[in-house]
């Protein structure tokens, strides 16, 4: 089904990859290069051997008994960005995100965070990074069952040696921020799953980190609560502007939250791009399969539909920005007598008419 949709998008895609995004390099907070994680006794040997590294994950298991959970992954995360990592179960998302603060020790590559190479620092420095710079929210919450909500939220401050008054004040602030006021003295088992995860969120926020990591934080929650929590994260991101690395296997969650999305398969990074790039120009069938059920009108923008002007065509019609979502352009395009101009600021990118819009709408209906 998606195959039938490829021709227009493939033909119309202006420039395949992340080309026209603001390049994050100069303000990059996190630079990951050639990252590897091999589980197993012979990890070091595999890391050292070109031949072994070239094997697929399956072959590697058969030959050495080791699993390459993360294979040669590189990406940058900009300050304030929400970076999403996606993939099927077992694709190495959790391993990758844990490697970022060495909760799992990578076996190769480099991780530069805020100008320092995390793989070179000693344990003490690493602890400092975990205590002050990067915090994490877990799928299974990981709350301390024997402690109240306040004391769970204050835990991060406690272990870095903050005074009692300071950490309690901060914890109360965070509890209020995540909307749990009134539950300060409850215990985790007295809270619903959604509320427990709010505690996890507050705990991660309490240390005022530069970057937050999320490993499928809402997978264990039911759909309605999940939506609330997603809205919560978006709100917090707007209010506090934290850089976030967010693991999920739910595409709609990825599209909702992510500035950019990294798709993984069998430990490898398959494609990195914005939501509309993944939908508009999937790198291969794996990615295409992933995005198959997304309503395209909600993701694609006009630049994906723009066609070159035919000779002598009337260029006096309505003008819309190339970043307008298809969804928002349906009405103007259908009502317009001539094809609509798609603009990149003052430059004409192309034209969009009924035909293109209807093609998208029909494919969404299937």
């Amino acid at each position, binding site marked *: 089904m998606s195959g039938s949709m490829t021709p227009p998008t493939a033909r119309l895609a202006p420039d395949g990859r992340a080309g026209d995004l603001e390049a994050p390099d100069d303000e990059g907070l996190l630079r990951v290069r050639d990252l590897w994680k091999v589980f197993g006794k012979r990890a070091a040997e595999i890391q050292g051997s070109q031949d072994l590294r070239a094997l697929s994950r399956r072959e590697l298991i058969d030959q050495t008994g080791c699993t390459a959970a993360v294979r040669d992954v590189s990406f940058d995360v900009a300050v304030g960005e929400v970076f999403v990592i996606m993939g099927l179960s077992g694709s190495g998302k959790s391993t990758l995100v844990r490697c970022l603060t060495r*909760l799992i020790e990578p076996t190769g590559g480099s991780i530069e965070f805020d100008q320092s190479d995390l793989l070179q620092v000693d344990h003490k420095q690493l602890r400092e990074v975990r205590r002050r710079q990067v915090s994490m929210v*877990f799928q299974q919450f990981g709350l301390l069952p024997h402690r109240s909500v306040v004391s769970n939220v204050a835990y991060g401050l406690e272990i870095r040696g903050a005074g009692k008054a300071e950490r309690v004040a901060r914890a109360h602030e965070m509890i209020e921020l995540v909307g749990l006021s009134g539950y300060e*003295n409850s215990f985790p088992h007295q809270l619903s799953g959604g509320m427990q995860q709010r505690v996890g969120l507050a*705990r991660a926020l309490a240390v005022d980190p530069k970057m937050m990591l999320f490993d499928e934080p809402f997978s264990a929650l039911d759909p309605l609560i999940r939506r609330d929590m997603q809205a919560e994260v978006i709100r917090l991101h707007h209010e506090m502007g934290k850089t976030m690395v967010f693991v999920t296997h739910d595409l709609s969650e990825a599209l909702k939250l992510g500035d950019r999305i990294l798709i993984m398969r069998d430990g490898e990074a398959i494609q990195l791009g914005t939501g509309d790039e993944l939908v508009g120009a999937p790198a291969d069938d794996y990615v295409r399969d992933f995005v198959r059920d997304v309503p395209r009108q909600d993701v694609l923008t006009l630049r994906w539909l723009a066609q070159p002007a035919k000779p002598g065509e009337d260029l006096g019609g309505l003008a819309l920005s190339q970043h307008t979502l298809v969804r928002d352009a349906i009405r103007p395009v259908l009502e317009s007598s001539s094809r609509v101009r798609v603009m990149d600021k003052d430059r004409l990118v192309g034209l969009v008419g009924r035909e293109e819009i209807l093609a998208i709408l029909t494919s969404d209906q299937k």
Partner: protein
Amino acid sequence: MSAGALVSGLSVRKIRSRWVWLILAAAWLALYLAFHGTSTLPLSASSTTSVQNNLNSFNNNISNGRNSNPVFLYGVNYVQVGMTHFVSFLQSLISQPGFGRPAPLIGWLGVIAIVGFVSWLTAGWKYAVLGVVGFYILGLQGLWQESMDTLALTIAAVLIAVVIGVPLGIWIGLHDRAQHIVLPVLGFLQTMPSFVYLAPLTLLFLIGNASATIATLIFAIPPVIRLTDHGIRAVAEPTIEASDSLGSTTWQKLVKVLLPMSRRTIVLGINQTMMAALSMVTIAALISAPGLGQVVIDALQTLDVGTAFNGGLAIVVMAIVLDRTTSAVGERSQQVGGRHLLGPQARRLAFGAGAVVTLWAVVESAMYVWANTFPSSPTIGPAIVAGASNASNWVQSTFSGITVGLRNDVTIAFLNPLQSMLTNAPFWLVILGLCAIAMIIGNARVAIVTLISLLLIVGTGVWQDAMQTLAMTIVATVLTLIIGIAVGVWMGRNRQVDRFIRPILDAFQVMPAFVYLVPFLALFGASRFTAIIAAMAFAIPVVVKVVADGIHGVPAPAIEAATAAGSSTWQLITRVQLPLATRSLALAANQGLIYVLSMVVVGGMVGAGALGYDVYSGFVQAPLFGKGLAAGLAIVLLGVVLDHISQSAANRIDPSRH
């Protein structure tokens, strides 16, 4: 009916065809008929072999070298003296004159107040009442001082066990390699009957409190190590990871996450250690540990059922108080954010009041005789003694038909034939038979272990006694399994029954081994049968539990399918549930054997003779010390053989096959 056929009854089903067994049994019988009465290695009760004499002189040499041998001078003696002082210190606190006073520092009033206050703080007011009433009863029984001696020794052993066991448990909980080394050692310690620790320790630490405490420590320490390890390992991975992700140090992780989250399991371990310690402290009376055990042993020696009952009852009361209170501590540590009856203000006030009252009671008991020495009246001790001994006489005379009949039936029908077969067969034939069984049920390794162990038993010189013990063990185990499996199946099939029976079994299991002897002695008098039935009572609870859990663990779909196919209840049990629970049955047999053996030897003190009696007389008569030591060794070796064979039966049954 060879030993082989009997052991094959341990549910080792379909492992080899029936023919192998039949042929072997026939061959064995043929050899038996040809050679019985030869090479039976008899040894009368008062005679000794040269090996045993050597052990005796070894003991003497050790005694003589105690003050010159550097190992003793700089090691063992220090431990011995330190331990003795530690125990005396505790004794002079609560049970014996000390600190230059004619009476213990804290008298009965103070002890009871402390028990009440501490249980109230850690377990709740109900347990405070239980503790106060329980301890008061101990005094009323006329056994205050003995109870406090037992308590002092138990506390000494438990304190040391916790100080060593918890850190060790944490360590093996965090390190797989260490765990792989320590767990098998604990497993071995736990298969050893409590009895056998005593003699070797007296060799090193002399008869008395030091040996008693160290024996108790060794016997009781496995649960606290195991459960601490288990608790640490059971802490949820996400929580540990969350703590790591926030930058906790290893130490912070331990004290803020691992220990609080495994507290309940660790307390459970301490509870089990405490109950094991109490059990052992009473048995350590054999090497002159003071206390309630001494009361029971003295009474058993003179077959004074009334006094033994009074002492046994006191042990039970103490066991109940210690067990209930420490389990309540564990349960309480689990309910976080539990509700309190009183507000914080009122609680502080109540605490203050409690502390003041306790302090007053302690001071009062230190200063005045009335609060120090438990008053001799009112008392219920003599009434209990008289009542129990009258009841025993009455039962024995009124129901002699039943009790004597039962005793004689079992003895004549099962025990005597088996025992005479094992003791009349040449030793090599028994060894051959057992090795064949080990080979068939287990493998060559098990057969070799069996061979070596049995040859060593021959070397100890107590072969015939070992065969008598083996006969009693087999009879008691078979009976235990029959009853245990029946009850276990019933329990496993019916949750309601389970809910009703399980607490009773739990209660039985915390009872020190010793007290099992008393009621059966009252019913059946001094005999081998008494030991057998006490061993059954001791072993049945654990067998029932293992079987019930196995039956309950049979997957529901299998039962549904069989029921849908129209099976009757009997068919369901025999064709589906028992076969699917084979592994549990084998484990039950293993546990049953170990428990039975450890109790059968204790039964040596009440007329069961055999190895238990040898050990026992080794403590009483100096010239027999070597023989007692040899018998203890034989018990360990017998335990090794039985454990290995039954263990390998359990291992053979691969649970994944079902």
